């Protein structure tokens, strides 16, 4: 099983490799260990995982920079569904995937994965707009406020998309090709000019 411990172990392994520079002969197989943590068990069935790949690729396509697939976003989102999501969240997220495919069947009589890139984009743009409308306030419900904003009309889709974007923009390609990121910036420069090459700094809260 791919547990949270595996994720931790992976990061610790990465750290160990960084610190050591090169693997040191220590009597255990570094390679076997690396292989074990690099190929975790998936949560989603092969069909749903393929659908997640297709959705991720549409949300963040390959352009002049890496897209979601090159940034391993589907694997990350699958691991989040398994290790981060609560059981109700897990259901919500898998249902969001199922609904995307259902919509594809309704509109094109084909599965989402078999659509052309343009068709996929068109379908997800529609779903995205509808999903992010505010949900109607139930009778007797409170008016939304800044601390308790309106719920989205389709919170499952909204969360799935958020996790895809979050996983992309926290990935190494997302942060180093698409945005900019320095782990240790060194100096604080309070004012630098903006040029056509300037990209927002990623990895921050806002």
């Amino acid at each position: 099983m791919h547990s949270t411990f595996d994720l931790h172990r992976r990061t610790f392994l990465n750290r160990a490799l960084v610190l050591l520079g090169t693997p040191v002969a220590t009597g255990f197989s570094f390679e076997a260990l690396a292989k074990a943590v690099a190929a975790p068990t998936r949560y989603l069935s092969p069909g749903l995982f393929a659908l997640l790949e297709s959705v991720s690729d549409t949300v963040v396509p390959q352009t002049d920079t890496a897209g979601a697939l090159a940034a391993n976003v589907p694997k990350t989102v699958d691991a989040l569904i398994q290790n981060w999501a609560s059981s109700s969240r897990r259901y919500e997220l898998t249902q969001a995937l199922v609904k995307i495919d259902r919509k594809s069947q309704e509109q094109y009589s084909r599965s989402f994965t078999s659509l052309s890139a343009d068709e996929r984009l068109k379908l997800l743009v529609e779903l995205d707009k509808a999903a992010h409308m505010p949900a109607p306030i139930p009778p007797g419900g409170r008016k939304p406020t800044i601390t308790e904003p309106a719920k989205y009309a389709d919170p499952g889709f909204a969360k799935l998309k958020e996790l895809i974007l979050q996983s992309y923009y926290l990935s190494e390609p997302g942060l180093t090709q698409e945005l900019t990121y320095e782990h240790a910036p060194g100096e604080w420069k309070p004012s630098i000019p903006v040029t056509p090459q300037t990209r927002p700094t990623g990895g921050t809260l806002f």
Partner: protein
Amino acid sequence: MFDAIVIGSGMSGGIAAKELCERGLKTLVIERGRKLEHGASYTDWMQPWDLPNNGMVPEETLDKDYMVQRLNYNMNTATQQYWVKDSENPYTTPEDKPFVWLRGYHLGGRSIMWGRQSYRLSDIDFEANAKDGHGVDWPIRYADIAPWYSHVEKFIGVAGDRDGLPQLPDGEYLPAFALNDGELMFKAAVEKNFPGRKVISGRTANLSKAAPQQEELGRNTCQNRSFCDRGCSYGAYHSSLSSSLPAAERTGNLTIVTDAIVDSIVYDPKTGRATGVRVIDAHSKAGATYEAKVIFSCASSIGTTQILLNSTSEAFPSGLANRSDMVGRNLIDHLFGLGVFGMMPNAPDTYYHGRRPTGLYIPRFRNVTEPADFLRGYGYQGAALRLGARSLQQGGGGLGAEMKVRNRKLGPWIIQVGGFGEMLPNPNNRVTLDRTKTDGWGIPVVHIDCAHGENERKMAKQIIKDGEAMIKAAGGMVMGAIPDPLPPGQGIHEMGTARMGKDPKTSVLNKYNQAHDVPNLFITDGAAMASSGCQNPSLTYMALSARAAHHATEFLKTGQL
């Protein structure tokens, strides 16, 4: 037998231990949590893509183990190890009065996760209780503590400007982290439109440029990473692990025990002195007693209260050093979590480099240069920043190649200012022991009954009004306001439950942080505070700790203890 025992290794315990050790006292620090190693235990090396679960703590783990700690602003998978499991560390509150007790049990305590904002109190604060009659008069004034503020600032390293403000006395500073262009525009507009209000660089305990006394301890200049809350392997912010405990250790006088939960302090009625500290091993639950000539309680305000109330004897049936009945009363936190944010379309199209460990600060002006319909006042912490990709992705931000292109562009300047307001001392805001419930170590759990009052509600309204007016004055568009403070506790500035005062009938500690009822017991954590000011309090705890350590040593030498 030690010369001194310090209960707790956090913000005040670290400094107390350093100061006692440097004065030649064989000192034992007792920490209830596990041992952490400076550097090795930290998670600051993790790249964003290394963070387990993208930094998000699993939802069911939050539900099961972190019902309270999850409310903390910096709970994520890189910092989770620093926050207690609520499931193992229970406390109770009345149903309608939530109190959010945010804690970390490990060597270094909350000095690892603190916000590092470091401000002196002024005589406006030390005189406040005497002037308006809330709480009891502080037994000290600014002049009593000023040299100790300097002493601590020089040691820990505080970056800031000398701004020449009576309500926020200047200290011994390393170079400030300069304001960015959005903040400079805001500053100019606020200072022009509201004479008496100032926008300054937030004074922070980060080494903008490490001084020799910090380098001696292996501490380095800040790298502007803003990973402070993960622990800093550069030692670039002051914590017990990076700074005060290593300084104590090099004297050869320090002993540390971890995983030792203090049950109570032992009192000898014959001598009228505390003789030692009873502990329970966190794992084996075996009991032990450590003895010393002087005891410093630095277990945090509520932690110290729990220990005192649990230290009952014939001489102190309602808890040690509690003849005044003030132990546990007057619990204070800062009004927190309310503020205003807006967009600044007129700010210059520039950017900044680095993630500086502080922001802007607006020192108190209500009841200083401007009147108010409430007592005391508030300051603001905030920042101007260019909205980044993460915010632009929220909501229906589109998708596909077009979305990628849009997220490459710098967002608009936004500004946010959040109020930190002074809560009045109120004896009914109280920590007691719930004798019907015990924790996993057989110690009665605390019951916290605390709420904001009318003065705080009036203040909260004005915080929002003033915040909105300042953003508008800078040509900003107010985008939203959070008008209600979070429940008390969430400011993580709990204090006041063993207050200093002149009269043993109405206070627990004298002007040396020495218990009126037990001369060899000193309390130098937040519990000692007779009022809170609106400034972040850790610097004051540290200054009081150093000052008390000095006096305790003198009293010991002259046989007064």
